[in-house]
């Protein structure tokens, strides 16, 4: 166990490191400037649980209807040896009739991640050289912050003309050729994680990583019906972003060096797993790590409500654009004091102050 690992383990405390999924890794690109998020992720802290423990539970939640719908659609596409999927691929991508192989690399139960990953690797590397078309649930591995993590394999790898494509089955509709751009973006970045992991896997086997295409196959319900539609999505941009953010994970040590060595968010569960650390303790620990809060965090980071509370009184809490408009002044009180000339600006604030004064003057003049 390296110093870094030890350091992160201490920070995380007794809890097991959180399992990574394509989603958690994709989330790292959402607010890469936030040290708090970076440190917690690197340490594998369960941010959701932590948020609850400090009294600001995340407000995500998924409707049972959505889950049911998602599973039902996926099952429908995969039913009867992926009959529907094959039809789509034949129609849209000219998949030859002979290509119908389907291999489920689902866990064999008591199988270890390493074994299962090996099985996936074997199947796919064979396919790269010989035969095979569809590979369901291959367990992939990826380096995150210097640690190898396994990804929940929620994908199908699909081989066409010697190239692999990641197939992503989503249940949001494509209506008249358009889909919710936010949902597509999420699907794209998650698929990019799989593409990256598959490329790494092939590379380790001495094969050409480019064998894995940057065009992923997105399968969604068409219009208001259940019949599927296939769209190719180019994830090259997502790949560059991912690579860069993953490489930045290495810089985590620099962040940690700014923190007290004994810093921890360990809930210290007692025999019955009830946390003995008080919300105040944990909150205080969190405050030690700088956050880069913006309202957008509320929709994608589990501890955002804690950070929002902390950021109260700051212009950034009103939105990135608002801070920009207010001349980059960080605190609401300062901004207003400068606007009302009840506070002398520092040389740095001179220009912003002038703008704020002018704004205040106009607002007063007109509202009067």
């Amino acid at each position: 166990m390296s110093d870094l690992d030890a350091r992160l383990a201490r920070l995380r405390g007794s809890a097991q490191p959180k399992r990574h999924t394509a989603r958690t890794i994709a989330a790292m690109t959402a607010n890469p400037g936030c040290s708090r998020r970076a440190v917690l992720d690197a340490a594998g802290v369960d941010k959701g649980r932590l948020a609850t423990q400090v009294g600001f539970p995340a407000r995500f939640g998924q409707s049972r209807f959505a889950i049911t719908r998602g599973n039902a659609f996926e099952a429908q596409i995969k039913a009867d040896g992926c009959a529907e999927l094959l039809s789509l691929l034949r129609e849209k991508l000219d998949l030859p009739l002979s290509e119908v192989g389907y291999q489920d690399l689902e866990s064999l139960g008591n199988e270890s991640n390493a074994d299962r990953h090996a099985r996936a690797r074997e199947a796919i590397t064979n396919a790269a050289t010989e035969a095979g078309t569809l590979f369901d649930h291959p367990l992939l591995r990826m380096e995150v912050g210097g640690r190898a993590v396994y990804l929940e394999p929620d994908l199908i790898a699909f081989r066409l003309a010697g190239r692999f494509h990641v197939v992503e089955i989503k249940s949001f509709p494509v209506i008249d050729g358009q889909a919710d751009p936010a949902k597509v973006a999420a699907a794209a970045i998650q698929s990019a994680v799989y593409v990256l992991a598959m490329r790494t896997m092939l590379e380790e086997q001495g094969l050409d990583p480019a064998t894995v295409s940057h065009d992923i196959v997105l399968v969604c319900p068409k219009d208001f019906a259940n019949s599927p539609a296939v769209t190719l999505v180019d994830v090259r941009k997502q790949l560059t972003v991912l690579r860069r953010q993953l490489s930045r994970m290495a810089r985590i040590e620099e962040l940690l060096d700014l923190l007290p060595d004994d810093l921890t968010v360990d809930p210290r569960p007692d025999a019955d797993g009830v946390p003995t650390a008080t919300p105040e303790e944990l909150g205080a620990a969190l405050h030690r790590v700088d956050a880069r809060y913006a309202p957008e965090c509320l929709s994608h980071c589990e501890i955002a409500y804690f950070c929002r509370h902390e950021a109260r009184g700051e212009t950034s809490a009103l939105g990135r654009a608002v801070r920009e408009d207010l001349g980059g002044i960080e605190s609401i009180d300062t901004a207003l004091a400068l606007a009302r000339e009840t506070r002398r600006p520092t040389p740095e604030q001179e220009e912003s102050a002038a703008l704020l004064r002018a704004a205040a003057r106009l607002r007063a003049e007109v509202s009067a």
Partner: protein
Amino acid sequence: MEGVAEELERRIDKLRAAVRQAIMAGDRTAAAGLRRELREAERAWDEAVAGLAQQVVPAPRGAGALLPVREQVHHALTLLSVPAAPRLIGEVHRAFFAGDIVGARLTSLRRDEERSFRLAPYSRPYYLCAVLSADVLAPARGLLAVSTWPLERRIVGPLSPRVDFLTCAIRVAEHVERLPEAGTSASRLLWRFAANIPGLGMDPGGAATAAAVAAARAELAIHAEADRSHRAAGAARATEQLDDAGRFFGTPRQRANLPRTARSDPREGAS
């Protein structure tokens, strides 16, 4: 009675709020407890109201419910002649034998069959058994077969899902042909097959059965040989490595399939 019902309604509303509160606070244990209370209250309410309007017409179940499930499944599988998933088995039964198979019973079916076989081997004329994957000889997820079928048929290689799908298509089409006139569920079933066989359009009217058979045979010809050899190889290994029970149900070591966890991740969007 009235009073009771109203009392219960108030209680139900309180409990609902409490459960959601607990969920949002991330306290799953408390939520579970409250949820139990809630279901209790709701059941009580149902009875109270049922008492008021003394008529509870249970939803009509299919006539097929009269036969034991294993026989219904056996009928369907025999018609298809190849391993199939519960969903397809259900549809086939609905289409040709009238009546729904109770899905819930299907899930436990394979376990019951295995238990009965292990307690008293071969005491039944047939067992509904697992299908083994040709590579690791582990039970393939969610497929059922009939023990009296040749071992090759109960082994699946990479091409088998497609081969069996096409075989099913042929069998279904032929069977529809034999019917005096096909019911809607039968023709819908046939259409679902036709939709995914090359050369047959997505014609909602339903494809001509003869055409379906021909098209399916045409594609089948492409895969049949390779598939047969995979299955044969698997069967050979199974014969030398596994005992009877193992060949029917897989060996215990290889059985249990863990549920996938990805879906239950609360962060996943509605997609």
